[in-house]
């Protein structure tokens, strides 16, 4: 997947770049509207990460161009401005998702994948990993042929793990993903622990491999190579 990162903060752009490159994405960066226009006219991208506050203008203006000329690209807005209006205008102008800074990179990745699934996989909502099959439309999970009885939160958690496989996911990142912006009131990460525990138990009961492991002090990891070990 080819990603264009339009972000004026070099460090942040590099973070995103480093993270996505590890996923095997091809990333390009630019930090002004002008440079972005040039890149867009020359190359084709699957996904565009668009910062709204750019030095030479509002990133929203780029949306019109993208929607008329480069329809195939998904756009995820990343903005420091958590204004409702921005969000609404952005989504109305054809952005596919909106993420407020500061965000977890894993979250950004999950959003990119979700947007990509919605638009590019021809309406299939199936996410597969070895014996695990997730239907993101009906929220049904299967281990092989055995249906996995998971709650909505557990489903989201499993999807988050699979999208960000082989990565350490911090408890904060998981909490933010599951409960959204208002995790202040749920700062108690025991809830995350409970959910992960339940999920692992349920997968185990359905005869699946226990891919999820605890990373000491940090969080959890979905180990894609686990099968080879067992």
């Amino acid at each position, binding site marked *: 997947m080819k990603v264009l990162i339009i972000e004026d*903060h070099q460090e*942040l752009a590099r973070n995103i770049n480093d993270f996505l490159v590890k996923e095997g994405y091809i990333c390009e960066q630019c930090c002004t509207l002008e440079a972005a226009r040039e890149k867009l006219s020359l190359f084709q991208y699957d996904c565009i990460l668009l910062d709204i506050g750019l030095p030479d203008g509002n990133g929203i203006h780029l949306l019109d161009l993208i929607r008329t000329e480069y329809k195939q690209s998904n756009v995820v807005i990343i903005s420091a401005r958590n204004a409702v209006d921005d969000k609404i205008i952005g989504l109305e102008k054809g952005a596919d998702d909106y993420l407020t800074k*500061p965000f*977890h*990179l894993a979250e950004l990745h999950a959003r990119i994948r979700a947007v990509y699934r919605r638009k590019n996989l021809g309406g299939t909502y199936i996410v597969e990993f070895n014996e695990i099959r997730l239907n993101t439309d009906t929220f049904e999970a299967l281990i092989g042929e055995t249906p996995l009885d998971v709650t909505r939160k557990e489903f989201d958690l499993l999807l988050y793990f699979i999208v960000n496989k082989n990565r350490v996911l911090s408890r904060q990142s998981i909490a933010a993903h599951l409960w959204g912006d208002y995790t202040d009131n749920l*700062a*108690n990460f*025991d809830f995350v622990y409970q959910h992960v525990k339940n999920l692992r138990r349920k997968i185990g009961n359905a005869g699946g491999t226990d891919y999820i492991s605890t990373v000491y*002090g940090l969080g959890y990891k979905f180990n894609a190579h686990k099968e080879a070990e067992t």
Partner: protein
Amino acid sequence: MKLTNKFTLWYFAIMLVVLLIGGAIVYYEIQWKISKVEVVRHQRLNDLIAQQIRTGGDFSGSPTRKRAAIDEIPAGNMPKGANSYYTRGVGWNPEFQANEYRLVVTSFYAINGKYYRITTYSYIPSFYQLLPGVVDSFKWILLVLLVLVAISSKLIPKYILSPLSRTLKVIQYFDLKQRKPIRLPETRTSEFKELNIFLKKMTDKALEDYQSLKEFAENASHELQTPTAIIRGKLELLMESDIQDDQAILIAEMHNALEKLSRIHSSLTLLTKLENKEYVTEIPVCLSELTRETLVSFDELIQMKSLTLKCHIEDNVYIHLHSSLADLLLTNLVSNAIRHNIPGGTIRVSLTKTGLVIANSGLTPQVPVTELFERFKKGDPASDSIGIGLAIVRQICELMNFNIIYEYAASQHTIAISFQPSIPASKLLQNLSFPLYPVL
């Protein structure tokens, strides 16, 4: 007491004193004047009699002699200096058969080498006869003054003080948050002019300060966001690298602190936005549905803490509130009720058209409950939260003119919100339909 009433009372007191003194002055003046006139008349009469004596002849039948006594006196008895004096006093008036006030004027003349003392007298109204007249007239004056002052104290201030009252009204409606400079009425009164200039200066300065403070807060929060995002990203990348366990702990702690920072930051930004009234809506939101949804989304957490949820949610409760604010309000309240609960405790939710009540069991707060609405105030200082949830709730309530109260009694924390400004939230607690039946 109103300024005009105060003025009127003072004026009235001063008037009373002036009138009393004036009355006394008038009384003595009249009395003295009457005597004076009488004395002059009698001196003229005495002169006339002396003239008659000088010309000689018999005037004993003349009307001039009616009340006159003429004595020839030895030369030694002639007074030196003034040749006339008068006395006053009560004397018997045989004409009216009564004791009356008598004025006696005595004059001395030297006529043709002989010395005469001529005394004439008449009866004049006594002081005591004058007094009621004076008192009466002053009574009337007082009455007229009273009526006029009463009327003018109502009418004149309206005219004179109208710039002041208009200024007061403007000041009353002045709201820093609306960021509109005040416009004060024109006036020709110099004091009011001064006051207006002062007020204008003061409010403009306040507006300016408020604006710069807000700008600072906004800029600071905006500028903080990017570095936070960068640090977070670096930490996440660092986590993926090959690290030791003790390093992992360090990273996790950094991550935790950073997380808290970003939560504080986003909450403060939210509060700023609430203050800026960025959330306005014309579409009413169905709170019944939203409350149910919120409770369902927290179901897992409720179960994890083995809490009992009881609720009574009226159907079709629509209120004018931005949907994200409604969501925020409910999420904050419900998650608060879960978080500050005790294992195995209860949560009770009641939603009616008039208001929302959420009660939960919990430990005794260590600070007064009203303070929990303040930013960064926590019931339990050791807790991991940043203590801003209730501040957000209160801000939303203030924005929407909802009345909110927080009560703690018998291990129950109760927050009541009245959607109608006319109904105090405490009233909701009285007509509460607790105990509620269990649901879900």
